[in-house]
């Protein structure tokens, strides 16, 4: 696929990124697609690998070589069909996925990978622009209904897939809009919220009901929900932030990153006239004019930097426990694995500084407000084998500290407790058999099942879960008279059938232990 040998002649041209000095003054998407000719040239670089590692690198199993080729040949209409066959929301992953596909691209071994994510976004945007993405409600309704709790990417995906099977789906969301962390964590610079609204509108027209501001477990009991629906899917994410247990943590001015990001996204929504929940007075967090210290070097931390830069922080420093690696390649994760850290990011391009190999040991403050961060140099390749460098302690001045070191597990209060679903040793919802929880008729998918992960993984979770739920509800919306003849039904091999369906969803690798969810597999 692509053009034979084109990878030797054509160089990678990625997203067209706006000048950091300019974009840091607004909240608009900071990158844009190349023109159609260039995109087709980029598609031509695809080498038609016998084993497309990109396709494996993608948690959704996107058929990357196939649609790269379609773009190269200008077959945009088929490309969106091919893309939609594995990915319900390519316009999201085309923007905010860290693109493990690209790090797995065979060209990444000794050259620049194909600009896969850009091509994905281009296909999606072309499809919306051409009017190819239209509501496609199911031809028949099964009469079964499903409640999905949580309107993040996992919840949206499970809802979309189940609705397509003909079940009536209601999505309950405690926040004021759909998208979960895509709406409240990710800045508009990466994902403008209209993109989410555009998709949700399609889903609504296909018949999915979204109810916002409903906190199941508080506004509505889990029991009521189960009475009203034939199945219940928990997709509430992993929202308990990981904390730092160091002296001085109690000082004010030290916040979880997510609290800051929620406020910033609501601030932008308010500015743009979209519905928003106002921040309680006195709880505002602002970086304007502050010396900001961001703890944690992941995407959340970067988004904090991005917002701090836009608010006009006096300085921004990120403290990352990991080592800087030589030569730009991360030896901890050789090809085809995605690097744990990239040398730079969009946020750092706009301002701020990262200190590698530093561990926070405490905070100092005045009047109960943080003023200093105590830290030291460490060595090690993972959070488990950090070794302090003797005599490396240092102090940084800072008056806003944002902790962005990840999440523990889903919130246990409320829905989880009320349902009484079993948890695994990490506090995630245990799903013994595929996506089934310990409570009959209750399923779970996404971060609340596997721990914090990527948007692309969340969508994949939702798709897999939908197959299982559909099966539990009596199969596909096929002609009911022939239901018994559906795949494998006569063989009485329930397990094989399940596997079939999960594989058909494009989500199980050959050889993968499908039935032992991540919850039971980890040590």
């Amino acid at each position, binding site marked *: 696929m692509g053009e034979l040998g084109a990878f030797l002649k054509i160089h990678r041209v990625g997203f067209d990124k706006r000048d950091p000095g300019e974009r840091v003054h607004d909240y608009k998407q900071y990158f844009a697609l190349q023109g159609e000719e260039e995109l087709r040239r980029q598609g031509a670089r695809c080498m038609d690998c*016998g*084993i*497309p590692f990109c396709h494996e690198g993608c948690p959704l199993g996107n058929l990357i070589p196939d649609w790269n080729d379609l773009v190269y040949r200008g077959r945009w209409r088929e490309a969106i069909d091919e893309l939609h066959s594995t990915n319900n929301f390519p316009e999201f992953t085309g923007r905010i996925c860290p693109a493990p596909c690209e790090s797995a691209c065979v060209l990444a071994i000794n050259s620049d990978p194909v600009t896969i994510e850009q091509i994905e976004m281009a296909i999606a945007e072309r499809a919306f622009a051409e009017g190819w993405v239209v509501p496609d409600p*199911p031809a028949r309704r099964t009469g079964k209904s499903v409640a999905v709790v949580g309107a993040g990417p996992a919840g949206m995906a499970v809802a979309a897939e189940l609705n397509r099977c003909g079940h009536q789906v209601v999505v309950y969301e405690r926040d004021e809009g759909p998208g979960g962390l895509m709406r409240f964590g990710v800045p508009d610079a990466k994902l403008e919220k209209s993109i989410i609204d555009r998709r949700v509108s399609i889903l609504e027209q296909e018949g999915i009901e979204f109810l916002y501001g409903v906190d199941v477990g508080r506004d509505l009991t889990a029991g009521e929900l189960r009475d009203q629906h034939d199945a219940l899917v928990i997709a509430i994410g992993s929202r308990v932030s990981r904390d730092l247990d160091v002296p001085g943590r109690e000082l004010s001015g030290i916040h979880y990153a997510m609290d800051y990001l929620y406020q910033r996204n609501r601030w932008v929504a308010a500015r743009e006239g979209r519905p928003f929940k106002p921040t309680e007075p006195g709880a505002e967090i602002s970086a304007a004019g502050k010396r900001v210290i961001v703890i944690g070097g992941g995407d959340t931390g970067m988004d904090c930097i991005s917002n701090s830069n836009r608010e006009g922080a006096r300085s921004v420093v990120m403290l990352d426990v990991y080592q800087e690696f030589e030569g730009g390649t991360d030896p901890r994760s050789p090809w085809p*694995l995605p690097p744990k850290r990239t040398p730079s990011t969009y946020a750092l391009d706009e301002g701020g500084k990262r200190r590698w190999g530093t561990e926070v040991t405490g905070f100092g403050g005045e009047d109960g407000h943080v003023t200093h961060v105590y830290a030291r140099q460490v060595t090690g390749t993972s959070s488990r084998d950090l070794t302090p460098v003797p005599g490396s302690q240092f102090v940084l001045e800072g008056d806003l500290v944002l902790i962005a070191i990840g999440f523990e597990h889903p919130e246990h209060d409320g829905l989880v407790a009320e349902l009484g679903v079993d948890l695994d040793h990490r506090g995630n919802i245990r799903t013994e058999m595929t996506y089934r929880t310990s409570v009959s008729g209750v399923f779970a998918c996404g971060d609340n099942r596997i721990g914090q992960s990527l948007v692309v993984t969340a969508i994949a979770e939702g798709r897999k879960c939908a197959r299982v739920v559909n099966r539990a509800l009596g199969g596909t919306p096929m*002609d009911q008279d022939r239901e018994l003849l559906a795949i494998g039904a*006569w063989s009485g091999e329930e397990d*094989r059938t399940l596997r079939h369906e999960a*594989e058909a969803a494009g989500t199980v690798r050959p050889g993968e232990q499908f039935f032992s969810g991540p919850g039971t597999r980890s040590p």
Partner: protein
Amino acid sequence: MRNVTPPPEATGLYDPANEHDACGLALVAKLWGEATHAVVEKALEALENLEHRGAEGADPNTGDGAGILLQIPDAFFRAAVAGVELPPSGRYGVGVCFLPADPERRAEVEQLIEETIESEGQRRLWWRDVPVDDRYVGDTARAAAPVIRQVLVAASEDLPDQDAFERKLYVIRRLIERAGGRAVALPSFSSRTIVYKGMLTAPQLPRYFSDLRDPRVATHLALVHSRFSTNTFPSWELAHPFRMIAHNGEVNTLRGNINWMRARESQLASELFGDDLAKVIPVLQEGASDSATFDNVLELLVLSGRSIPHAVMMMVPEAYRTRTDLDPDVKGFYDFHSCLMEPWDGPAAVVFTDGRVAGAVLDRNGLRPGRWIQDTEGYVVLASETGVLTVAPEHIQRKGRLAPGKVFLLDLEEGRIVDDEEAKRRVARGQPYAEWYSQSVVHIDDLPDREPRVPRIEPLRSKQLAFGYSQEDLRMIIAPMAAKGEEPVASMGNDAALAVMSDRQPALFSYFKQLFAQVTNPPIDPLRESVVMSLQAGVGAERNLLTESPDQAHQLVMDQPILRNHELEKLRQVSHDVFDAATLDITWPIEKGPDGMEIRLFDLCTEAAMYVDNGASILILSDRNLGPERVAMPSLLAVAAVHHHLVRRGTRLRTGLVIESGEPRSIHDMATLIGYGASAINPYVMFESLDELADHSLLPVDLDQEEAEKRIVKAIGKGLMKTISKMGISTIQSYCGAQIFEAVGLERELIDRHFTGTASRIGGIGLDQLSTEAMERHFRAYPRTDRDLLPVGGVLQWRRDGERHMWNPDTISKLQHSVRGAGAAGPLDAETAASGNGSWATYEEFAETANDEATRGAALRGLMKFRPAGDPVPLEDVELSSSIVKRFSTGAMSLGSLSREAHETLAIAMNRLGGKSNTGEGGEDPVRYAPDENGDLRRSAIKQVASGRFGVTIHYLVNADQLQIKMAQGAKPGEGGQLPGHKVDAYIARIRNSTPGVGLISPPPHHDIYSIEDLKQLIYDLRCANPQASVSVKLVSEVGVGTVAAGVAKANADHVTISGGEGGTGASPQSSIHGAGVPWEIGLAETQQTLLLNDLRSRITVEVDGQMKTGRDVVVGALLGADEFGFSTAPLVALGCVMMRVCHLNTCPVGIATQDPVLRERFRGTPDQVVSYMVNVAEEARRLMASLGIRRFEDLIGRSDLLDMDEAIEHWKARKVDLSQVLHMPEMPADAPRRRTRGPEPVLDDSLDWELVRRASAALETGETLRVGPVPVRNVNRAVGGILSGEIARRHGAGGLPEGTIEIAFSGSAGQSFGAWLAPGVTFALRGETNDYTGKGLSGGIISVRPPETVLFRPEENMIVGNTVLYGATAGRAFFRGLAGERFAVRNSGACAAVEGVGDHGCEYMTGGRVVVLGPTGRNFAAGMSGGVAYVYDVGRRFAERCNAELVDLDLLAPEDDEKLRPLIAEHGQRTGSLVARNILSQWEKGARERFVKVMPREYKRVLAERSASQQPAEAVAEASGAAG
């Protein structure tokens, strides 16, 4: 010697049905005068001189068989049974009986014989005990010897003539054979001929049978035969001759021929036989060899009234379809008889006689040698070699050879040789066959066009989904065929799950693996030798074989078997008085569920039988009714079931089977359908998908539907030719129903019922699972799913939702991580730790993934588990990994397919380990023969000798530790190869002795190996070149490979490699990678079992390769019988290969499989990576050994009792597999060696060369000139010059000695391979003649051959040298005063030669050098010739039509040609005394010069012109490329 008891039946994987044999044969006759005992003496002398073509088993005194067929010596019998009143000659018959040794059993059999004679109205005269002397025979033969008696039978009065008596004797014999079964064998039973034969060597024959020494045993003719069998089991009756023939060859289409003969039996009728005919049916003896079966049919045809040449022409037709110069009557004869019988296809030299006429016939491709001489006394000798009888030159009248497709006939009444044309014309004018044919036959193009009767409403997408189509099928199979008219090429091996382990509902086709020719017969090159190929197919009823009438030609004929939609409609709605078509539905109603398939299948067979009974001469099996309510059964199942049902009912021949199905879409699919009985196929969904492809711009924009369909049909046609030629079959007609397949993963009941006679050795799924999968496919389409896309595929390229592959992102990345970076050295032992840097922990992860996930779900060994021999032993007690790695080698990957960097890295790594790397077929740069400064050696220990012989010089051969003859390659067994011009850079070209930029072709067969005795010869030749190296033969796993391996052991190889069908390639058609060859587990186990049963295992080292990845694979391989292990893909992965599968495109992005300098710079592999991988594999094996309780690796070998089926496998299909035959251990004494324990056989001891080397010692050391001779030479002196040349190359390198240093004169008939590998500095001048393979691999020496001065004949009209002369020659000169046989200068890449006439296929595949032909040429001259120049003296101006001009131009001489041509002709004249040369030179300017045609490849010309334009003299390039090496 251990006494071997004959295995009565198949045991384990060994099946006697797979046995092959080959041999030397001769026909001796006296054209005029009285019958004489001298004929017998001469025949026995000839036989003894053919001894080297036969073979001995583990017991050297036991031959594989020798025998003689004579006219009944009347005088002898009258004396021998004195006292009995013998009727006149011709009124009594002699039955030769092999009787049980046990007296009681013998009495029963004798009683049976007597009663049968009596009940048939004849009179038993006498039982004669045949005197035998068993003192000289081997123990094995003696133990199995039958009691031999002759029964004399007198003819009854009512039999009008001797023919009637012969028929009656035949009837009696068949009755006895049918009633007596295995207890009795009747080698002859005739009033005309008598056979003496047994499990003897040639010299033993006359010693054993004193009759043969009796001077009263006189005859006009004798057939003798010396057998080379692949087994060592005692079998007296399998010796030749049979009753009418002796045969050197192999019937490739045997299975089909047998089935068709069975089908014919019910409609046989003969006035001559009358009611007696029923007594001889079945005509074929159960379980007989191909030769015996051929004999059975020939006998029937002759006894029912046809002459023996007539019958032979029916069974072995020449390639007549493409001939323009053929007598129209003869062509008509062949056309007509093609409606009666399919060819018995395969390489064959058959000598035949009915006691009155004798003759010989050669197959259409000339794949067996046959030379004859007639002397002045009227004796004629025809034999596999010339020189088998010593005839003084002045007594030789004529000489000749058997030419392809030609008949050689001796008319004893007229006392002369009847040539082919006359013999055939006589037969062809017997009836107006041409007229009959043209009146009765109907061509499909002559039928009127028809519209479909039923409207077609089913949407395409539903059909595609229901038939299991994927995007991959459209994109990677159908689109390329439609666009280019040929099957797409791919690369690397097939690592996908076996069909029986797949969850992807693979089509039934994928359970069938194509069989292919290896060793015992050659595959054909369907492109370069297309003159022998035919795709023509016919449908319609066949009639009684035993009569002749015009309506036997009522056949509907198609040029090829793929029908487009409108053509099928013509057929379906045919309205013709003799044709009637019926369409049968092969779908079943969905409401019946999976059980509905079997019900429908049963009804289908019943309906088919009924329609046939009612006169339907065409049955169309159709799944057009597929729809939401009806499920399609596998099309192959429908075809095979109906075919076999009708065969069993005896009505199969009354109808032709046509399949109309949406399912077939690849070449392999089509081939299986035809192989199981379909005459024509309409793959309608494939055609209907073209629109979609066009719509998706996957086809060229200017391609219309019509043209696209035509191209697909063309592509399939080419692919089918390739498929059938893999087995050496040249006509689709004889492939049809021939079942050239092995099933992998289908249960016995299913096979026995519907695929009767197919090998299926691991059990597997049956109708239940097939119907379940059919329904699963159906439910992809119905009810309509939410998504309209086709599944993505994933068989050819890995996809996550697709088929399971053993190489996947997980296994590749883990393997690469394990050999990179500074991981812990792990558990490496001290010696190897220093050299490796891999991480043991990461390797363990890789091994776990590869073993437990990838292999477990895909390969047979994944279904096995270990059974420890005892308690685990401490790891430190187990043989070190540094010792185990010495058993490892890397696969044969050529420089050319791999980059220079990758190729050398592998060699360095394997040399560091003490293992072996393999050159592959591409030569090796001599600079690699010396160590590098750091001590690394880039020399490959294994030097491969493949069919192209690229870079195979004497210098190359002496620089090897092992010489490997590649008979087949896992990814494309039975096929040749092609290196495209863009991969032939200056470096590659230099090493391969070719021209940069010009593509190179490797032929499918070795042109010096058409049979097992030829292989024995090449092994001998290679041993001569390098007596220190071991000789290996590489085979590919298929049913019968064990038997071939036994033959390889008997041919004195040291080593045999069994490759799995899943092995890799640098370029091969898609259908070969996936469709041919079976897993190594089966082939290896069969090899081990067969070698053990034959007591040959200790003689040979067994290596296995094909998708080897881990230590577990190694241990499984060892337990199944392997001493050594080959790895190819895995070490490449260690070097950075990521399975792009673009090796054939030259775009490998990691610099491994490419010659592009930019990409080669990206190569990052190091020897350390390979070392680390290999050591880790050995270490894993070592740990497994510890857990099994085994300390020494050699104790693992052959312990298949330590393996068991893993019952934990719960896969719904895989658990039906039964590995008991694979794991079977033959019952053997405990001390019987299960591994190689012996050294090689000292076969070179009696070589003539030792004497030459001794006399040349001074010349060898100091270069002093030497003149020797004349040295007498005979046909038993083989490969003369080989050892001498090796000595020169070893001492003096590639350049050898200065020209003329050693000159040796010879006289006599030289044996095969005269002057093989002859090194620079040696000149051989022979007065006499030579056999096949003269000048094989000529490396710089000079050979001249001229007849003795005293001969009576004109040299330029008589044979002087055999077939396949100068094969693979790289340098040197050769001159032959006389005619040469087939394939003169085949694959010549640098030698210059002159000859006075050649047979067919001259200068085939030539890439360099100059050849002058001063006389006639056969057909297909210059096929596949891509370099060098040939000059042909074309007196009759007929050359153009005999030349294959596909690649070459024919020009007149240019002025600059004179200076190249004239000196060569002059030298020819000077060295051979040729009058032809002298005349031409004297007439040079007076017309001779104008008669020359210059034959030059276009590409070669173009490249030379480009060179010359860029300032380099063209000549320099040509010379450089010719002289290098």
